[in-house]
């Protein structure tokens, strides 16, 4: 009991300290994360962005964050608390915060809100997102070049558009190199269960895959690849330390530049709600240094990255849907609305989409 009390007391003390340190002339920018910042994945990368803001804007800004906020009624309270505590600009970083933010934004018209990966906007609520599928196309090309068995193992979390879009883009990239390339897909039904991700990686390798791709957050799958002397791609952050001989590259999220520009705009008084979908060209989607691959593959990956940064969209026709029916005509580019609601596979994916 004593321990618990001491822990409680120190937390309260820390909180009140943080509150008293608040200076009136500073802009207070706040973040809400759905995971722990110690996940070394999605929420971790958002928090790295927050730290970059602190570093770049120094004493013009004061930041705060709430982590482990569950998506649902809890989120309402989190946003409201931050707004009441004097946050002037609030970033909600998870899709599931959408309705909570819309509601709280209406209640606090003077506070600026931004929401990541959603689609609802308001007078004081902007949205932002990153085109991770651009990077996944490059991963697909590298996988097709580097795989000896012609089969990749793909570990995925939940069948939401973001994930489906990633699988499609990866396969389009891979099959642009090797039309017979296959991916074995395993749904682990969790964003975060290192043990299960490791088990899935082992199962995929045992069944003949020799490259692992993931749309889950932990380093577990890459560590299995390292142990088995095979290869794989990192996710969200650069995981090279965990798999120095296995990581080919890592698809990383870089929110820092965006956050800095938005907080700066808020300080200058030029902030307006916006709707941006950032990609490789904006520096929000980055591929970690290419490692463990020959120079020609590296050159190809860099060239594709440049092409995408130059404005080319991986979802450019002709592309057929999985059942063979036409989707995009030759030269036709998928519109953002279709991509954001993607619930079908393209031709060549060897899996049944869970509905």
């Amino acid at each position, binding site marked *: 009991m004593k321990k618990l009390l001491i822990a409680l007391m120190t937390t309260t003390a820390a909180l009140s300290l943080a509150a008293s340190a608040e200076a009136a002339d500073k802009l207070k920018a706040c973040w809400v994360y759905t995971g722990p910042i110690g996940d070394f994945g999605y929420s*971790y990368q958002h928090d790295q962005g927050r730290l970059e803001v602190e570093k770049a804007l120094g004493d013009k800004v004061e930041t705060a964050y709430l982590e482990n906020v569950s998506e649902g009624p809890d989120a309402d309270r989190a946003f409201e608390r931050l707004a009441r505590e004097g946050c002037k600009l609030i970033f909600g970083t998870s899709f599931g915060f959408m309705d909570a933010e819309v509601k709280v934004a209406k209640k606090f018209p003077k506070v600026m809100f931004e929401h990541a990966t959603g689609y609802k906007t308001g007078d004081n609520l902007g949205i932002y997102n990153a085109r991770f599928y651009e990077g996944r196309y490059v991963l697909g090309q590298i996988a097709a070049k580097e795989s000896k068995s012609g089969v990749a193992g793909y570990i995925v979390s939940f069948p939401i558009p973001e994930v489906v879009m990633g699988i499609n883009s990866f396969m389009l990239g891979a099959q642009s190199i090797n039309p017979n390339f296959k991916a074995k897909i395993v749904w682990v039904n969790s964003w975060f269960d*290192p*043990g299960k991700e490791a088990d899935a990686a082992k*199962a995929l390798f*045992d069944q003949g895959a020799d490259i692992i791709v993931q749309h889950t957050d932990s380093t577990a799958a890459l560590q299995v690849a390292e142990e088995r002397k095979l290869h794989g791609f990192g996710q969200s952050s650069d995981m090279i330390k965990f798999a120095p001989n296995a990581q080919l590259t890592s698809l990383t999220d870089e929110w820092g530049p965006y956050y800095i520009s938005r907080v700066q705009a808020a300080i200058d008084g030029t902030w307006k709600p916006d709707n941006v979908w950032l990609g490789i060209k904006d520096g929000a989607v980055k591929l970690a240094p290419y490692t463990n691959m020959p120079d020609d593959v590296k050159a190809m990956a860099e060239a594709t990255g440049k092409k995408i940064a130059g404005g080319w969209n991986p979802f450019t026709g002709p592309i057929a849907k999985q059942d063979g029916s036409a989707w995009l005509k030759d030269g036709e580019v998928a519109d953002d609305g279709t991509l954001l609601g993607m619930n079908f596979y393209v031709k060549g994916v060897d899996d049944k989409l869970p509905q």
Partner: protein
Amino acid sequence: MDITVNILLTIATAATPLLIAAIGELVVERSGVLNLGVEGMMIMGAVGGFGAGYLTGSPWIGLLAAIAMGALFSLLFAVMTLSLATNQVATGLSLTLLGLGLSGMIGTSFVGQPGVRLPNLDIPGLSSIPVVGKLLFGQDPVFYISIVLTAAVMWFLFKTRTGLTLRSIGDSHTSAHALGIKVIRYRYLAVIFGGACAGLAGGHLSLVYTPQWVENMTAGRGWIALALVVFASWRPWRVLAGAYIFGAVWIGQLHAQAFGIPVPSQMLSSLPYLATVVVLVLISRNKRLTMMNTPASLGQPFVPDR
């Protein structure tokens, strides 16, 4: 053949932490105490094990630290429920919540750092025998500990006088007290043993299974261990069977997906839980035996001289 061996090895790795945590909790519950804090003690073991291994560079020190951390953390539960006679359910739940939060705080600086891995057993000659070599002589040390531990607990509970005393306390602490048995002392030791086991299970996660530290990395395994104890109707060998059935179906469903079996993945994901429950219910159909095995004073606080 290789694939079968690999699958069996993967199953053993998945089942080991469940088995160890469940065996520990079984002893605790046999003494009549219900500790719902397994998840919390496990994650404390995971962070302690990773931290000590990372700082000293020795996975063995890490493993010892994991055990110590789990035991120390369970002591908190023991003081509350045994000496202060608080409600065991509420205290256990808060132990889990506290563990999840505290471990995150302790582990802040370990995030994103590669840790150390406990090496697999490698006996020259024996480990390289085809098929059985790897299964019998080439696994991680914790796997062997888990098997020995299960056998030892089985022997202790049913073949020793102390084990009999422990079970009698679990069935009726007032009678045991009347006979002059030191109920609280026994329970303290049982709870600490359970904590040490949960800590070891956590250490297996962060030093063998997935050598890394991330918050919430136990991902509910403590709860599965708790459920296993109940479904196994407090029999050690059934806990072993349950952990391995769970592990087998857990790994099997991943293989089924990779193989391309057209069953919805959500359905497959729920199979391990379903299969374990069904099998354990089937093997414990005998109502009389099950009732005999259930510690009668489970979860009731004991306050002598009231």
